[in-house]
């Protein structure tokens, strides 16, 4: 996601803060929207929605300040947004979440470690595959046997 250089880039001299602030304002707006059904305060008695709206409102305000500061100050650029690493890490976590109940700890850990390994360019597969196997055995021993966490170990048949 490279920002266009030119007039716009000149105007926003601190893109980190500018876009950061904008996202916070958007986040506050979503939070505010999520409280729409909650009762507010009656007189001086707080309702369920009072505190969330208060915090979201303050966040929108401070987010706006950050955004404005992003326009009037100079700061570093956001930098590159490499997609591969973060997304594969995220994917590996999703894989674990999605599979652990069905296939059990051992298989889920194995697959998760492999997907995560794919996130790094330094990964050597000849090393990563046995490592994944070792880790899944180790995790099963540690979490399931030694600590006794109630995790399914093997696929459900």
């Amino acid at each position, binding site marked *: 996601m490279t920002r266009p250089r030119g007039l716009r880039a000149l105007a926003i001299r601190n893109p980190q803060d500018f876009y*950061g602030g904008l996202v916070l304002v958007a986040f506050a707006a979503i939070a505010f929207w999520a409280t729409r059904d909650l009762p507010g305060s009656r007189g001086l008695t707080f309702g369920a929605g009072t505190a969330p709206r208060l915090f979201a409102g303050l966040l929108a305000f401070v987010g706006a300040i950050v955004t404005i500061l992003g326009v009037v100050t100079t700061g570093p650029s956001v930098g590159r947004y490499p997609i591969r690493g973060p997304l594969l890490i995220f994917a590996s976590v999703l894989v674990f979440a999605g599979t*652990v109940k069905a296939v059990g700890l051992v298989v889920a850990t194995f697959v998760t470690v492999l997907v995560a390994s794919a996130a790094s360019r330094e990964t050597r597969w000849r090393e990563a595959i046995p490592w994944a196997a070792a880790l899944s055995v180790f995790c099963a021993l540690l979490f399931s046997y030694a*600590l006794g966490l109630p995790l399914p170990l093997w696929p459900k048949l």
Partner: protein
Amino acid sequence: MDLLANLALGFSVAVTATNLGLCLAGVLIGTLIGVLPGLGPVATIAMLLPLTFGLPPTGALIMLAGIYYGAQYGGSTTSILVNIPGEASSVVTTLDGFQMARQGRAGAALAIAAIGSFFAGTVATLLVAALSAPLTTVALAFGAPEYFSLMVLGLAFAVVLSRGSVPKAVATVLVGLVLSMVGSDLVSGVPRMGFGLPELADGIGFVVIAMGVFGFAEIMRNLEAPEQRGVVAGKITGLMPTLADLRQSAPAIGRGSLIGAVLGILPGGGAVIASFAAYTLEKRVSRHPERMGTGVIEGVAAPESANNAAAQTSFVPLLTLGIPANAVMALMIGAMTIQGIIPGPQVMVRQPDLVWGLIASMWIGNLMLLVINLPLVGVWVSLLRVPYRLLFPAIIAFCCIGGYSVNNSSFDVMLTGLFGLAGYWLVKHDFEPAPMLLGLVLGPAMEENLRRAMVISNGDPTVFATRPISAGLLALTALLLVVAILPRIRRRREEVFV
């Protein structure tokens, strides 16, 4: 002297073979679960509580207490090694601790954390033994308005200790507060901001967010810039702190211990605020405040001493009033109830052997932890010699399993992943996650105390200014913010007008 007689009674109880064994078992279990991301003392004690059914009451409490402060030691290990705070009170430790690890000084950081914790534990145990009764009045002096003001002060600490711009730090605190509102309304029980998801009915757990924005985000960042990783085998220098390190940390340990011991007495958030306060104080007294956060040893020594001291003194309201300072203490009350002991002011009179035995065992436990942890430093540091391409998938696997085990919930694991992406975004935009976690932890209690303060004062908001302790805390907040912000605003203006 009463104190000596009481301590003698305590040690005579704590030094029996059974109780020593239980204490050792407790601190070992505590260290282990503290080191493993996701597993915390609350879940572990809840799991082990039924086991204590068959133990004598004193032994049961000694073991559970050992798990609690053992986990405090273990929790700092992950903060330093992999940037994942196991507990809210070790969030601050990541700031300098992980930087030290990146510079190859993980050994010094871990050792100073253990030494500081031991010293703090000793100071706090003595305080508990000598001053339990007067300390209790401190806890009783804090009502809803005072707690609210204390939490405002705590959030101010979080803003002040951040390195970047003040509005951005305030914004991250607010993000934490907004996230903390997800769950159920504490008065009416209405689900709120949960987008209709039943998984969100109990709110977003600390572990989920801490693992995501600290642990996963750090990995994502490391992958993009391998050369900045720094944790390279060749660079690891000395396992133990140097004499200069010790000299530098000694005052920080002293200050941290005191802050922690005092704030730990306050039920609700005391220990967390203590670690933030201790770090902020170091930043204020430091001759080079700009270096805080780049891997200076005081930045580890102070909060680690504070959180361990607080862990010890949080037993004061439990022992003297039967009031739990935090979730772990609430489970301890459960343990006492199961044993047929009704916690309350009478426990100290009716069962002095239990109370003093527990207090004495805390010091013994801290000594055991020091002895266990110093040799372990070498083991932990050698983990960092594992090439990063192998280390990071292992961290992810551990976090996934740990995160899943908190509630046996795949949803939590998924959420952790999402917070990983969010944390990566925060780093990219130079937002610091530590203030956000404090907002997250303090949010619900802040709301509850604010609401209750308004009811108690019959809707009069001046209650925060008319109650002296509350007014003092708010004045301190204002002072702190002004002192901290003015120089930065001046700097900012220079930036604007270059």
